[in-house]
């Protein structure tokens, strides 16, 4: 049997979109309005007789949500699908999960498909948590016996034991989402399609969800298709990426390269991720990225590895300037400082021009959570020049210093840096 579980060939999907023609505004004469409405009515009636779709407006246009999309996905792969809004991601998932039919092309699927297009789909507010587990499980394609056998796991994961017999309409939104994801996470199809589940819930729960998805994919060799705008999640979860743009496949490659391409295309369109950083008197910070060993930008940091921050800046050649990078935790408390001059005695180049520096910072055991980096230039010991707050951010998905503790998280409230011993702790009787 072939190892390819999803094969798409020249997949296309078109929709009819209608506009109001510009003429509508121009002739506000009753006779014209009546004449036009009559025409629309006649057209609608004709459409009805022919069995076609009724569209509002008087100009109809064909819109291709997907155009000649081809790709292959192997068993056990976790594939991220990325692209801007309207690039066709959701349409693609809808076709794969058989919700809608393609206009042309074909897909071959080997194995059961379950889609998680939005958590909580099919929850009924009047029913209790217990009843909704059965309802939602059945909707997602589980049999009653399967649900029964996983019932306890589902409840434990969702942490709603006390409210099992309360109608879900009285649940807090957090409980609602937890329960919904928990049901979906305990599905066991061969192909799992996940769309933007992680857009909801608090940070901790998102982390938990990511962990669960990873577990599902890595332990059982299932194939996961994952759509998200959260590049950190895409980066840390997926092995391969498909970049869609205006309904076409732009790139289908390893995740890092696809994400890089996507970020670059976003950058081209929006400037620096939609922000204007301005400039200082002598210098201008142009770009700040967290990069891995291959100089590819990443949005995550693996604790215990060197933290590499790449800064691109311009200077007018003023002497005695320094570059500082501040590390701030999720609450924006600054917890770390890196400085070229204060710690290393290095000043910025004294020749006007554009430069790049990669600070190779020593490993830190950061707690799981999100961090942001502020970058600033200064005239040493005198004044700040160009300060960029939140120049970039990164996520620590999992922190397990020396691989023996629990997942050390910022939100635990024990700080954000694990202080580990250089030598194993030993007790001596005195």
């Amino acid at each position, binding site marked *: 049997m072939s190892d390819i579980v999803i094969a798409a060939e020249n997949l296309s999907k078109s929709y009819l979109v209608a506009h109001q023609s510009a003429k509508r505004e121009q002739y506000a004469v009753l006779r014209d309005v009546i004449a036009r409405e009559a025409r629309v009515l006649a057209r609608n009636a004709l459409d009805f007789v022919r069995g076609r779709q009724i569209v509002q407006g008087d100009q109809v246009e064909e819109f291709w949500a997907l155009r000649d999309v081809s790709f292959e996905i192997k068993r056990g792969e976790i594939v991220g699908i990325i692209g801007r809004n309207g690039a066709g991601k959701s349409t693609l998932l809808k076709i794969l999960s058989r919700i809608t039919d393609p206009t042309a092309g074909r897909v071959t699927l080997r194995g*059961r498909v379950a889609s998680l*297009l939005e958590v909580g789909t099919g929850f009924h507010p009047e029913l209790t948590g217990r009843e909704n587990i059965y309802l939602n499980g059945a909707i997602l394609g589980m049999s009653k016996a399967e649900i029964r056998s996983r019932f306890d796991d589902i409840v434990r994961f969702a942490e709603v034991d006390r409210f099992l017999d309360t109608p879900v309409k009285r649940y807090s939104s957090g409980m609602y989402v937890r329960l919904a994801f928990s049901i979906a996470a305990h599905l066991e199809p061969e192909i799992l399609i996940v769309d933007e589940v992680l857009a909801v819930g608090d940070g901790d729960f998102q982390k938990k969800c990511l962990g669960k998805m990873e577990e599902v994919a890595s332990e059982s060799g299932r194939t996961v298709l994952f759509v998200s705008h959260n590049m950190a999640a895409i980066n840390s979860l997926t092995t391969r990426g498909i970049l869609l743009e205006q309904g076409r496949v732009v790139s289908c490659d390893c995740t890092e390269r696809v994400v890089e391409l996507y970020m670059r295309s976003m950058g081209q369109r929006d400037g620096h991720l939609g922000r204007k950083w301005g400039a200082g008197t002598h210098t201008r910070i142009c770009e700040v990225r967290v990069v891995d060993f291959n100089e590819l930008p990443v949005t995550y940091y693996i604790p215990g590895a060197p933290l590499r921050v790449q800064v691109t800046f311009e200077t007018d050649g003023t002497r005695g300037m320094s570059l500082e990078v501040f590390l701030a935790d999720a609450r924006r408390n600054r917890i770390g400082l890196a400085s070229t001059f204060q710690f290393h005695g290095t000043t910025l180049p004294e020749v006007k021009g554009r430069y790049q520096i990669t600070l190779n910072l020593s490993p830190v055991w950061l707690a799981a959570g999100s961090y942001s980096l502020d970058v600033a230039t200064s005239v040493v010991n005198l004044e700040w020049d160009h300060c960029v707050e939140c120049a970039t951010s990164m996520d620590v998905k999992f922190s397990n210093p020396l691989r023996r503790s629990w997942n050390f998280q910022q939100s635990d409230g024990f700080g954000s840096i694990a202080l580990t011993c250089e030598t194993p702790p030993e007790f001596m009787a005195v």
Partner: protein
Amino acid sequence: MSVVPAELVKSIPAPNNASGVPVEPSDNTYELVIEPGRAERHYWRDLWRYRELFQVLAWRDISVRYKQTVIGAAWALIRPFLTMVVFTVIFGKLAGLPSEGTAPYALMVFTGMLPWSFFATALADASNSMINNANLISKVYFPRLIVPIAAVMVAFVDFLISFVILIGLMAWYHFMPGWQIVFLPVLAAIAFIASFGIGAWITAFNVKYRDFRYIIPFLVQLGLYVSPVGFSSSIIPGEWRLLYSINPMVGVIDGFRFCLLGGESQPYWPGLWLSLAVAGFFLWLGIRQFRKMERVFADLI
């Protein structure tokens, strides 16, 4: 402190495990091909496979139906009962229409009322079922036919509850049904087929053309007076009776009266066959139309 048991703690994942992971052999290594306009080969098998979803959806609608009401399922009794009282007074007492044989007028009205209110509820619920479940249809795949069938099923439960009133009425009038009652399940099945067929047909259209949302309540209201609910179909002139039986509920209601009121009412056979044929035709048409349009529901809803 949120200390997670050691076995749940995952170390930092190895970057790639795309291949070489053992996969348990699964029983369904079937291939599924998605293509435009491809007829579903396993449609009926799929429908059968999703029977649990059907049960769950029907159960959901039943259990939600009377939540947060004071008298609960008693609503299923009160509505047909009050309609029966009104019809008995207006048609039986004021208009002085004849009953069937010696059966009390109220009983005759109620035997017509039973299948009719089932048909009306089923039709109204089924035709709106797709739109009411729009969030499901645009998010998850399952054979869509489940939705209207579940809606009809829910109406069927109400129908069974209403039998309580019938038994009460019969006890009140000391009326014993004859041996013909054995045909009752057959007639219930015909009523089911008629309401499901028409329901599926209208459901399919309702998704695309919402006009039907306004047509259905009107049709149902009109049908109450056109069908022989408040009166006996024997008052229809003989030469019109066959034409009258094009309404599939005419045959069903006549059949119900035959079963429950016994030999007092004679079945009008050509009419019954015609009603059955019309119901069957609508079943075929409804399923055909539904399956044709099913694939685009998610785009239209």
